[in-house]
């Protein structure tokens, strides 16, 4: 029995060792906490338990009690006897209980694992040489770790469809499918879009879409990530790259304020795919399909890669110095962006202070899907609030700016990547106004900029965002930016320095964070960039709870105003 004082912990015996584990978790999770792998295919921590792959079979026993009296049955040494279950049990469907004994490496268990591995491979096509999953395939890994290493199968293998298009983005190879049902459960339980199912029976069972349906929801590619084998493949990534060549960089999705944690996979500076990174406080293990497309902007045709002064190409240094000249002693307005990082917004705020520029901020909004695509389609609106760039909630129109411009209040405009011409500012407003544009992609505003300074996408720089739950999350550069370009922070620091009479603004992240975290009133107080945990840091957003945030209730998010009502 557990003698642990903490009621939320229980003591179990794992392979002969007494260990403490949280109550109510299953054997797979309990063993993982103590470094023991229980191999599994169908079990996923964020889906319901199916118990169908049988790979996680372990030997289990519980302390024996007399059925009538409930008293413990002791052996001759006075130790409570363990009633071992004669058959192996599934680790995924068996929750720990006080005093439970578990064997993960007995001959019964290894025999089961060898048997299951053999069964999974008898009708498997073994086309690893051309399979996208090779290198990150659970079948390969567990066959090596838990299989016998040879085959006794001499019969003909089953034949099934090899390239079924389940939807616009997912292609299915049914011969590779081990029928674990993760994809089916994901569509039912997470997306509430029940389109997948099995047809036929026994070994001829085949995964398919229901008649007249297709797997086209905005989360369909998660089924590819969930698939433990090479059955579900991304039509976009299919046959493009062997996964072992890919460099994996942790990053944050910039699609919306959900701030899904992602992994950017690249080779030689080119991104091949984006996949979700597990964070149980933010996105579980999921992300949107639309978010995975964002890497395509890196090499898109409308990317700005050359600096430009009055329509002529220039060097970056020249562009920065002409911008500095334009800033001096001018009636300046600065249009910031909710897509900039916390650090960039901080420097922009400082730039505004030193140049006496007036700050404007614009939001981008869309429909909320109730999962991981938030109404706020920018990654860092809350960063703009937290750094003090804006005190009020932005609208998607810049009508204040338009009004001020038409009254002739400004003669210079610094724009951070926003297309102000599609948000209420007219070309007439901009007559006689000098425009400095810092951005990654061409738009109507960049076309009329007097000074055009190319910046980097989130894949090419390092920084942090604050998501809809006020979670501070950092990301690192995944691929180098276009040749000759500098991170936005360097450009902003140069502009600030051109205005400063004494002292110097560093573009170094650690230095910027020293400044950010210095005021005792700052929500960043005592934080540093390198100390932001890989799963983010929860900030206290109470200060802004009065604001009317647009996000609706969604995965791991409840709107503050809704909470107050409740």
């Amino acid at each position, binding site marked *: 029995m557990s003698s642990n004082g903490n009621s939320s912990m229980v003591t179990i015996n794992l392979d002969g060792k007494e260990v403490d584990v949280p109550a109510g978790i299953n054997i797979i999770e309990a063993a993982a906490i103590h470094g023991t792998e229980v191999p599994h295919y169908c079990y996923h921590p964020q889906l319901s*338990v199916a*118990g*169908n792959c049988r790979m996680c079979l372990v030997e289990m026993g519980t302390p024996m009690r007399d059925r009538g009296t409930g008293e413990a049955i002791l052996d001759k040494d006075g130790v409570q006897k363990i009633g071992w279950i004669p058959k192996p049990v599934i680790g995924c469907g068996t929750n720990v209980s006080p005093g439970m004994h578990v064997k993960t490496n007995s001959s019964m268990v290894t025999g089961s694992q060898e048997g299951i591995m053999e069964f999974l491979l008898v009708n498997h096509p073994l086309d690893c040489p051309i399979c996208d999953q090779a290198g990150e395939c659970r079948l390969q890994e567990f066959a090596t770790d838990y299989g016998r290493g040879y085959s006794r199968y001499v019969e003909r293998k089953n034949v099934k469809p090899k390239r079924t298009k389940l939807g616009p983005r997912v292609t299915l190879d049914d011969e590779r499918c081990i029928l674990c049902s993760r994809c089916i459960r994901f569509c039912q339980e997470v997306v509430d879009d029940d389109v997948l199912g099995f047809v036929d029976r*026994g070994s001829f*069972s085949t995964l398919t879409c229901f008649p007249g349906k297709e797997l086209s929801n905005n989360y369909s590619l998660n089924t590819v990530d969930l698939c433990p084998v090479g059955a579900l493949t991304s039509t976009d990534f299919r046959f493009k790259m062997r996964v072992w060549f890919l460099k994996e960089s942790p990053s944050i999705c910039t699609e919306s304020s959900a701030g899904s944690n992602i992994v950017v996979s690249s080779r030689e500076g080119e991104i091949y795919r984006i996949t979700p990174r597990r964070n149980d406080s933010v996105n579980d293990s999921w992300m949107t399909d639309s978010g995975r497309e964002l890497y395509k902007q890196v090499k898109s045709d409308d990317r700005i890669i050359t600096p430009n002064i009055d329509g002529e190409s220039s060097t970056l240094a020249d562009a920065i110095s002409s911008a500095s000249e334009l800033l001096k002693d001018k009636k300046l307005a600065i249009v910031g962006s909710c897509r900039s990082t916390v650090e960039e917004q901080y420097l922009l705020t400082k730039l505004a202070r030193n140049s006496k520029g007036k700050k404007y901020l614009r939001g981008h909004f869309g429909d909320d899907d109730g999962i991981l695509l938030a109404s706020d389609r920018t990654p860092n609106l809350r960063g703009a609030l937290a750094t003090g760039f804006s005190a009020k909630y932005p609208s998607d129109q810049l009508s204040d700016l338009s009004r001020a411009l038409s009254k002739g209040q400004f003669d210079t405009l610094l724009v951070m990547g926003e297309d102000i011409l599609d948000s209420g500012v007219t070309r007439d407003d901009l007559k006689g106004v000098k425009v400095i544009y810092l951005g990654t992609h061409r738009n109507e505003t960049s076309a009329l900029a007097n000074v055009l300074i190319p910046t980097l996408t989130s894949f090419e720089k390092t920084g942090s965002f604050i998501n809809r739950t006020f979670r501070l999350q950092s990301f690192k550069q995944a691929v180098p930016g276009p040749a000759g370009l500098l991170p936005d922070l360097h450009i902003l620091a140069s502009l600030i320095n051109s205005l400063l009479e004494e002292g110097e603004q560093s573009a170094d992240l650690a230095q910027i964070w020293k400044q950010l975290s210095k005021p005792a009133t700052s929500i960043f107080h005592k934080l540093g960039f390198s100390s932001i945990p890989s799963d983010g840091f929860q900030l206290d957003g109470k200060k802004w709870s009065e604001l009317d945030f647009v996000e609706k209730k969604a995965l791991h998010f409840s709107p503050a105003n809704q909470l107050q009502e409740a």
Partner: protein
Amino acid sequence: MIKKNTPQERRIILKHADDPKYSNKIGCYLKNDGYSMLKKAFKMKPEEIGEEVMKSGVRGRGGAGFPAGMKWKFLDRKSGKPIYLICNADESEPGTFKDRQIMHKDPHQLIEGMMIAAYAIGAKQAFIYIRAEFFKGAHILEEAIAEAKEKNFCGDKILGSSYSCDLVVHRGAGAYICGEETGLIESLEGKRPNPRIKPPYFPAVLGLYQCPTIVNNVETLCNVKHVLEMGGEEFAKIGKPNNTGTRIWCVSGQVQKPGYYEFECGALTLGEMIYDVCGGLLPGRTLKAVIPGGSSSKILRADERFTGKLKDGSDFDWGIEDIPLDFDGPASVGSMSGSGGIIIMDDTVDMVEAMANINAFYAHESCGQCTPCREGSLWMKKITKRMCEGDARHEDADLLLSVANQIEGRTICAFGEAAAWPTQSFIAKFRDEFEQKAKNGNNKPSLQLI
């Protein structure tokens, strides 16, 4: 062996089944004192009925032989959720054809038994889940239910009481696995009949629509009526201790008079069944093997000696003909009485071909949900098929046994055992025939690895 008189059937369930003057209409049933036990039940408290069933010791007739009264006691009554009663009429085990007789010939007996059981467990709704192939049975039951409703034996305010319980016939779509109770429940819910994992989905707690549910076999539910008629203690005197009541044995295979026979449990031996009741083997044949409880039970070899200790501690030393026909007899010789389907095989049977036939069935019927059963059953089928086609290898017997061992005990439901036991027992008892196939049958070019 001392020659005895031919054992006499004792028909309780099938009392009227083959009476030419008896029909399956309610008028005939009522004339034979039908529904009087339902009336009696409604004068009792539900718990009292459960107590009688418990005392009767009646064990489930579907295959596992679990005491019905005990099953009812496991019902979760604290949850406050509605309770459901389901009659498992998915009779699919090869070699079994008893429930069909009841439903075709005496449907009101089943309905009466079900309504007594429904009242006893407090069911809100009762279902008869009948296999797709029994379309005539389903039709007969539907007519009978309509008749019973008209007479207020089921439906709203039964017999003028405050208790209402509707009875619905649900036809399956043709899958053996729907006989597994949690697979049946899934199918009844309108889903693919993938059996559920236990724990947590024990039907008595989380059954149909996640509500407490009792699933009983047709014959078991009919017995409820007779338990009430005789009283639990009196019923328990039929047969032997722990093997109470009668059983309907379905004899098929190479005997003179195959068919269904109802006997008191333990009233006769397997030998008496074959030679006295069924008229013996076909002329000139000798007995080779018997499968005692439907195709999934382990095969017994005719020339085996079975020794060991019975549950009461006494020793036994039996030939195949001495095995008593009850629950415990076949179980004590390492097989089971299952659903009562006795399959007789004589010396003309090629055991490898018989094995191939059984394997083909289980490969076809595996739901495909969990790995060992899905892949193992088809693999065993492929091996035995190949052996029969003249491509046997000397290692095939061991391979078959190993595959079966890799299935047994590792699956979600008991189908794994059902698929593995035949192979395990065929290899154990008739290994010589499997090896012989490799010695004399190899007239094909050697296999190509594919």
